[in-house]
C-alpha cells in the first residue's frame, strides 16, 4: 500500500514510546536475564512453531492429496473403509471421465475464460488510466460504483438475463457467457489496474507527451510494459473466477455451451461406485487453475487483494 511512510513510522514511534514507559517495562538487568532465558528457550519454541506451520500446511493440502490419490485407485479400492492407501494404481477413473465426453465443456470453459479475460483487460486498462493517471473529476465515485456492482448479487439479475437470452436465441451460446464473465470481472480488474497505474512515474508519461504520442500509443508502448506484472495479476484472477463460475453457466447453458463446472455437476448423478471417477473429474477440471495459481503465486496474492498489497 502506498501509504506515506513518514506518518506510519511516527505513529509506531509514538507507540514505541508508550511501551517504553509502560508499567510492565523491565529493568536492564532483568531484561538481559530475560534475553538469556529466551535464547535458551528459542530452539525448542522455534521447532514447535515450525512443526505447527508444517502441520497446518499438510492438513490444508490433505484433502487435495486424498483426491489425487483416490483418482488413481480402482472404484472398489476407492470405496474401502478403512481406506487402502497402497491399493494398486489404476486409470479407471480417468478412462470413465474421458469417455463421458468432457472435451467440449473443457473447451467451452477455456473459450469463456480466455476471451472474457482478454476483453476485461482491453476495456479495464484505459478505464484505469482515466481513474488514475489523467483522472476524471468524480473518479472516486466511479471507482466505488464499479465495486458496488460486485455487491449486487448475480442472482438478482439472472432472470432478466435469462429472459433476454431466451428471446434473442442466445441461450446455450458460449458468447453470452463471455460477455457476462467480462462484466462480472470488470470491477476487480479496474480496481487492480488502477492501483498499479497510480505508481507509474510521472516523468515517464511527460516524456511520452513531449514525443507527441497519442493515448493509444501511450497506453500500449509506455504504460503497458511498466505495469505488465499488474496486468498479469488481474488476468490471472479474472481467468480463475471465470473458470470457476457455476450459477450463470448452469442457468444459461445446456448441451452445446455447457462449461466444465456444469459438466462436473451432471457427471456425478450416475449410479454405483463412483468415488474414483468423481475425484479424477474434479482433479482434471481444477488442473488449469492449480497450474496457473502455482506458477504465479505472487501474482495471485496481488490479484486477490485487488492490488492493494504489493
Amino acid at each position: 500500500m502506498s501509504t506515506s511512510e513518514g506518518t506510519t513510522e511516527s505513529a509506531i514511534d509514538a507507540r514505541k514510546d508508550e511501551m517504553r514507559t509502560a508499567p510492565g517495562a523491565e529493568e536492564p538487568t532483568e531484561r538481559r536475564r530475560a534475553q538469556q532465558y529466551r535464547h535458551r528457550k528459542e530452539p525448542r519454541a522455534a521447532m514447535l512453531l515450525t512443526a505447527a506451520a508444517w502441520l497446518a500446511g499438510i492438513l490444508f493440502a490433505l484433502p487435495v492429496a486424498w483426491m489425487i490419490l483416490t483418482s488413481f485407485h480402482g472404484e472398489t479400492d476407492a470405496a474401502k473403509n478403512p481406506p487402502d492407501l497402497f491399493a494398486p494404481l489404476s486409470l479407471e477413473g480417468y478412462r470413465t471421465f474421458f469417455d463421458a465426453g468432457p472435451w467440449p465443456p473443457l473447451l467451452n470453459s477455456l473459450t469463456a475464460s480466455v476471451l472474457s479475460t482478454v476483453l476485461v483487460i482491453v476495456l479495464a486498462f484505459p478505464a484505469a488510466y482515466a481513474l488514475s493517471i489523467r483522472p476524471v473529476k468524480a473518479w472516486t465515485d466511479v471507482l466505488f460504483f464499479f465495486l458496488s456492482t460486485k455487491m449486487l448479487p448475480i442472482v438478482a439479475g439472472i432472470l432478466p438475463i435469462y429472459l433476454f437470452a431466451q428471446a434473442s436465441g442466445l441461450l446455450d451460446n458460449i458468447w453470452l457467457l463471455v460477455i457476462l464473465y467480462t462484466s462480472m470481472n470488470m470491477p476487480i480488474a479496474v480496481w487492480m489496474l488502477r492501483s498499479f497505474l497510480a505508481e507509474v512515474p510521472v516523468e515517464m508519461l511527460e516524456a511520452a507527451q513531449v514525443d507527441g504520442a497519442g493515448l493509444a500509443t501511450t497506453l500500449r508502448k509506455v504504460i503497458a510494459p511498466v505495469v505488465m506484472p499488474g496486468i498479469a495479476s488481474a488476468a490471472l484472477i479474472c481467468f480463475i473466477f471465470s473458470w470457476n463460475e457455476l450459477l450463470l453457466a448452469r442457468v444459461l447453458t445446456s448441451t452445446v455451451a455447457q462449461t466444465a463446472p456444469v459438466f462436473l455437476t451432471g457427471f456425478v448423478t450416475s449410479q454405483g461406485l463412483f468415488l474414483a471417477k468423481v475425484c479424477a473429474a474434479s482433479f482434471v477440471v481444477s488442473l488449469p487453475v492449480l497450474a496457473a495459481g502455482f506458477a504465479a503465486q505472487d501474482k495471485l496474492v496481488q490479484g486477490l487483494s485487488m492490488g492493494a498489497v504489493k
Partner: protein
Amino acid sequence: MTTSAAETPLDAPETSEDDDGRTTQPAGSGKWARRLPLLPALVFVIVLTQLPFLGTIIVSFMNWNAYYPDERGFAGVDNFARVFTDTNARSAVFVTILLTVSVVLVSLVLGLLIALLLDRRFRGRGVVRTLMITPFLVVPVAAALLWKHALYNPEYGLLNGMLTWVFGDDAPQPDWISNNPLIAIVAALVWQWTPFMMLILLAGLQSRPMDVVEAARIDGASAWQIFTHMTLPHLRQYIELSALLGAIYVVQNFDHVFTITSGGLGTANLPYFIYQTFYTAQDYGRASAAGVVVVIGTIIIATLALRTAFTLFKEESR
C-alpha cells in the same frame, strides 16, 4: 514504495487543470478527452448489471409464472408480501447471514494464525505456503464434490475411514452431512477461504517495518505486547480488506449449497432459494421480489462495508 509517483496522479483532481502541467487542451474538450477511455468499461458494466436489475424490479411487481403464461399481469406488492411471509424465504435470509458471518470469521482467525506461523524463517517455508494455497485453487464445485463424497460420505469417506483406523471396527461412523448440514458446508467453505485470508494477512505482516519491531523487542516489549500494540494495528486494514472481499464472495455462494445438500436440511441460502424459485418453480414474480429484497439487504450491509473500504482507500491515497 514509490510514494511520490503515487501521489501526483491521485492528487490531480484537487489541483486545478492549469497547474497540473499535463493538460494543455481547453477545459471542455479536455474533460471529454479524460472521460473517453473510461466510457467503454463503464457503459459495458452499467448495461450488464443495472439493466438486468431494473428488469428484476419490474418483474417483481408482476404476477408471472412460466407454468401459467395466461395469468401474467400486474400483481402490486403481492410478491413481496409472499416473500416476507414465506418461512423458506425467511430461513434463507437467516442461513445466508449465518453462513457468511461464520465462514468469514473462522477463516479470518485461522488465516491470521497461519499467517503468523508463516511469517518466520524456517526450513521449507515456501513449500508450506504452496501447500496452504492449494485449497483455494480447487474449482469450488470440485471442492464441494470432494468434501461431500470423498470426506463426508458415511460409508467410505476419509473422515470415517480415519475413525476406523483409530478406533477399529466398532468405531463411530457418523453421517456428517445429515447430522450437521450447515457446519458441513461452513467447514468446506472455511477450507477454501482460509488460504485467501492467510495470503493477504501474510503480505500485510511482511510489509511491517521490522527495525521498529526489533527496537521494541530490545526495549523489552513482550511478544504479546508487540502483537497487540504494533502488529494488529498495522494489520487492521489488511484484515478489513480480506473480510470485505471474502464476504462479497461468500454471500453469493451457490456452488457449495447446491452440491453438498441441494439446499435441503435447512441449508438453502438466498442465492439457492432464488435459483430454485426461478429455475425449478418458474415463479418469476416471486423470485424477482426475493432478488430485490436481497439487493436492498446487500445495499444496507454494503454501505457499511464500503465505508470501511473508503477509509482504507483514503489511507492509501494519503
